[in-house]
């Protein structure tokens, strides 16, 4: 693939990621390398969706749910092959006193495999 074609694909991935239709893009990007790039954007979108779904599940009012897009969900903390071309992604926004982690797995075509896992907790730590 030429470098200009790759740039176009990256731009397309950014656009599609925002629009939330990354699966269509995955069909047009068959190589492993470009599929990974596509999956990153897809994973970020899915992470935000998972976070907002969790907020709804624990009873947040809808106007607060739609206004919430935590910054940490834009940064992939860990990414690892999960078999059969699928990848697991970890978004970790934890600090010393609060745990905020989203873990999800995407198939090579961008389809979500299983339920994303949300870990969100108030933490107390040992001090001096």
């Amino acid at each position, binding site marked *: 693939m030429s470098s200009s074609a790759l740039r176009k694909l990256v731009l397309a991935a950014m656009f599609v990621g925002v629009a939330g239709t990354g699966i269509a893009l995955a069909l047009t990007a068959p190589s492993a390398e470009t599929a990974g790039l596509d999956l990153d954007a897809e994973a970020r979108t899915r992470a935000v969706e998972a976070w907002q779904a969790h907020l709804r599940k*624990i*009873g*947040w*009012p809808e106007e*607060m749910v739609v206004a919430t897009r935590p910054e940490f969900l834009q940064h992939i903390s860990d990414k690892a092959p999960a078999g059969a071309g699928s990848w697991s992604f970890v978004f970790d926004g934890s*600090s*010393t*006193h*609060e*745990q*905020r982690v989203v873990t999800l797995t995407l198939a090579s075509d961008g389809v979500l495999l299983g339920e994303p896992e949300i*870990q*969100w*907790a*108030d*933490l*107390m*730590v*040992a*001090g*001096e």
Partner: protein
Amino acid sequence: MKHSILVAVRRGAKLFAAGCALQLALASSASAQLTIVRNFTGGAPPANLAGGGNLPDIFNAAADWWERTLCTQHTVTITFRWGALGGFTLGSHSLTAQGGSPNRETAGTITFDNDGSSVFFADPTPTESSEYAVFVELDDDLGGGLINVGRLHRNASGAALGRIDLFTVVQHEIGHALGLSSANASFVAEAGADKDVDVVAPLPAAGSVLPTDPGGSAHLDMSRALMKPSASPSFRHLVTDADILANAEISKFDTVLLGIPIEATTVVRNGTGVNPTGFVEVTPAVIGENWSTTVDLSNGANMSLVVLGLAGPTSSMTKWGELLVAFPHLTVSIAPGAHSAAIPFDCAIVGLTIPTQAATLGPPKLELHNALDVTVGAY
């Protein structure tokens, strides 16, 4: 009130304030009560747990304590267990459900670290704090007048020395379930942007601004508060008024009881000693519980009276004996021997002392007996 009749006898125009409060309370059937439902799901205690206490008992003591401070109708169910948390983490709270108006946490889970990295002291008598030689209370003015911001025991000995106090950690984690939680929409609305809790009326100390963790976690940025984000070995922290006010403001608990919860007490009083002893049994007067007493009828009387002297203690001689509770405002319970009254769960009457006196009614005659000064307690 099965076997006795409560009759309000009022003389005079002005009601003694405390008596008024009690009468209103006794007339009230509604109870404004915070209920913490406790579900212990087990897990193994850490092998290095010291002190002889256990998690369910300590959890009960801590939950009872919080229930006595936030006197507002609400129920939250907390599922708690031992589990491995790793690192330096002592305890972890996750909100699992919230709702209602005002929005409050209705269910949460708490895990206490059992991987051995947290070295806990499990106190078999957590409300006594006898393992700590010094108790310190600290006040500060955070814009609404002086409030208590620190309540800590130090100078630990025995198993408490060098270990993290599990009672402190449990109180802290329960505190998260009452408002200060990053997953609580009410916390986000109150402190998410400005990183503080602004205490407003009707809460006491309105105008106080309680700083929260600038890093965004749901903790107070106050070094002596229970809801600070860490715990240190050899110290025990108790719920401070700042902790109570922060959770009350976030969760809109509009009635609070600041200070250390008051224990119900009963003091025997008998003036000059001429009256015979009348009370033979009495239970503590605890809000939300039944207060009961029995009067001795061995003098041949067939009826007894318990006089609640709402105007305070006194002493004056009458032809029936020494009157030890003051007129003009009395409530009298009349029954053969056993008397009881349901004390409402009303934090406004905690600390109220009610002088009571027993009397027996013929044959052969009316006879006054000793008095009990009953102080209503939160426990």
